[in-house]
């Protein structure tokens, strides 16, 4: 029942995103419209895939670092991606893929550094150091980014900042295809880690005694969640709060068991981002808000509500 409802909400969110937009397309001409086929449909699908990926990455990372307030971008990826993007612009790299590729490389570099820091205590990956290292690497990358921006005079840097706030205006069938081919791999890895993730919520020692290979699970979950986040940031910038709020909303209904939580977070995250992007495109049309602004405007009040609930429980 609740799965049917969620599926309906997800389909509706994507459909709404295809139907609504600044240009009025009569319903009868929907299927023949270039705007719908070349702009709105890929954009709606990309929003859904990115939102779903962020929801799953957030749920996985929250269990991994044992912190319910963890967000996929907390672990330094947004800083790395931003630095990559700004360097690409400062170097005048051109082409539709220059920015996404540079951001992806930046995110991977941050991922690698944070992962290395997480192993600093020895062979065991320490989630607390991952968290601290992520914040530190993110701040360091942001500092370099700001230094480059303050030294450069290019007006395009404003675009880099806007892009970093998250936007799906670069969506195309190519980017949809890219994410649709790439994301399933880390998604399946995370889904396969569902049960060990349930155990990890009890702490590493208990998880181990209940039969989980804790080291392997931690590495897989960190790498898979980060690789998902990296592709999300590459095609759509830093879209906050989806990865933070959606897992908690999913937990309220589906409980904490990752076997059902992860699929629910995927559908819920996809629906939320498709809906938020529709708002971002329509409320101030013909101009557009960064979708990260919309998710934050929706996400922060929900988050505050959740925090209240958390402190009571």
């Amino acid at each position, binding site marked *: 029942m609740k799965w049917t409802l969620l599926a309906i909400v997800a389909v509706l969110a994507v459909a709404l995103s295809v139907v609504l937009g600044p240009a009025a397309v009569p319903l009868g001409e929907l299927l023949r419209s270039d705007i719908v086929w070349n702009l709105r449909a890929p954009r709606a699908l990309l929003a859904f895939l990115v939102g779903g990926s962020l929801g799953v990455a957030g749920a996985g990372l929250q*269990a991994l670092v*044992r912190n*319910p307030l963890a967000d996929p971008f907390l672990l330094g990826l947004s800083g790395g991606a931003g630095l990559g993007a700004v360097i690409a612009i400062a170097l005048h790299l051109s082409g539709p893929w220059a920015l996404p590729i540079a951001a992806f490389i930046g995110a991977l570099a941050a991922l690698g550094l944070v992962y290395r820091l997480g192993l600093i205590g020895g062979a065991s990956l320490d989630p607390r150091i991952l968290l601290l290292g992520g914040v530190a690497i993110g701040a360091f990358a942001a500092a370099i980014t700001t230094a480059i921006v303050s030294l450069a005079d290019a007006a395009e840097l404003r675009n880099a900042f806007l892009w970093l706030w998250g936007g799906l205006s670069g969506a195309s069938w190519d980017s949809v295809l890219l994410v649709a081919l790439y994301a399933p791999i880390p998604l399946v890895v995370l889904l*396969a880690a569902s*049960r*060990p993730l*349930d*155990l990890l*919520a*009890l*702490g590493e*020692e*208990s998880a*181990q*005694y*209940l*039969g*989980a*290979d*804790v080291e392997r699970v931690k590495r897989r979950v960190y790498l898979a969640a980060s690789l998902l986040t990296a592709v999300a940031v590459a095609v759509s910038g830093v879209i906050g709060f989806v990865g933070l709020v959606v897992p908690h909303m999913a*937990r309220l209904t589906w*409980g*904490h*068991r990752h076997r059902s939580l992860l699929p629910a977070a995927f559908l819920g995250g996809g629906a939320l981002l498709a809906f938020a992007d529709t708002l971002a495109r329509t409320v101030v049309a013909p101009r557009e808000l960064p979708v990260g602004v919309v998710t934050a405007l929706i996400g922060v009040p929900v988050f505050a509500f959740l925090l209240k609930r958390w402190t009571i*429980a």
Partner: protein
Amino acid sequence: MTEPLLRLDGVRYRYPGATSDALQGVSLAIAPREFHAVLGPNGSGKTTLVRVALGSLTPLVGRADIDRRPASMWSRQDLAKLVGVVPQREDNLFPQRVRETVLLGRYPHLSLWGRERAEDHDAVDRALRACDAAHLADRWLWTLSGGEYQRVRVARALAQEPKLLVLDEPGMSLDLKHEMGLFELVLGLVREQGLGVLMITHDLNLAARFADSLLLLEAGRPVAAGAPNDVLTQQTVETVFSWPVAMQTVDGRPQMIPLRQPKESRA
């Protein structure tokens, strides 16, 4: 003589960078239907012993075998089918109900993508009943009292259907009734279900009342091992714990009573 489930043989262990051994010359063998307690002051190596016994640490000298295979060679999943552990503490990241947390004990028996089968739910029901916790099944964990929570954690370890149960300070912060209840429960599992038990505890008196065999550690070395009456003598207890005691016998088991030691005579 039954084949021991767990056998430590002349184990020596030193943590990397430490200047003295955490364990030295420790031996222990636990067969089914045996209740063993490991005692000792803080820092005497009790927890290290558990880590070596369960394969988390590999002894530098000596052997630590579970079912005749070195403990560190077992995969975690296979080991969890044989040994259930109730660690000293844990915290639940997310709110959870009793039945859910006990069901986690079935993890080692499940395949990667498979769902829980009827036999898994049966094992959970059996474990809850054995721990007198069936009526708690639908409660949230955070609504339980300390004693109820410990029983649920024992139930989770039982749901693993192990042959050996390891408990690390299970009676800590429990009141008299719940602590006694827990020890009775564990003894019942040994007698009725034939489990072997390794319990780490501070409580000399309860260990002496319930366990078949005691191992007393001091600074990583075994001071005494064997039947409670042989281990807990006045002289041994006073030496190891550096405090004067008197000894009595209850139900044929030694019980120690710490004596007052006025300030002036301590110097």
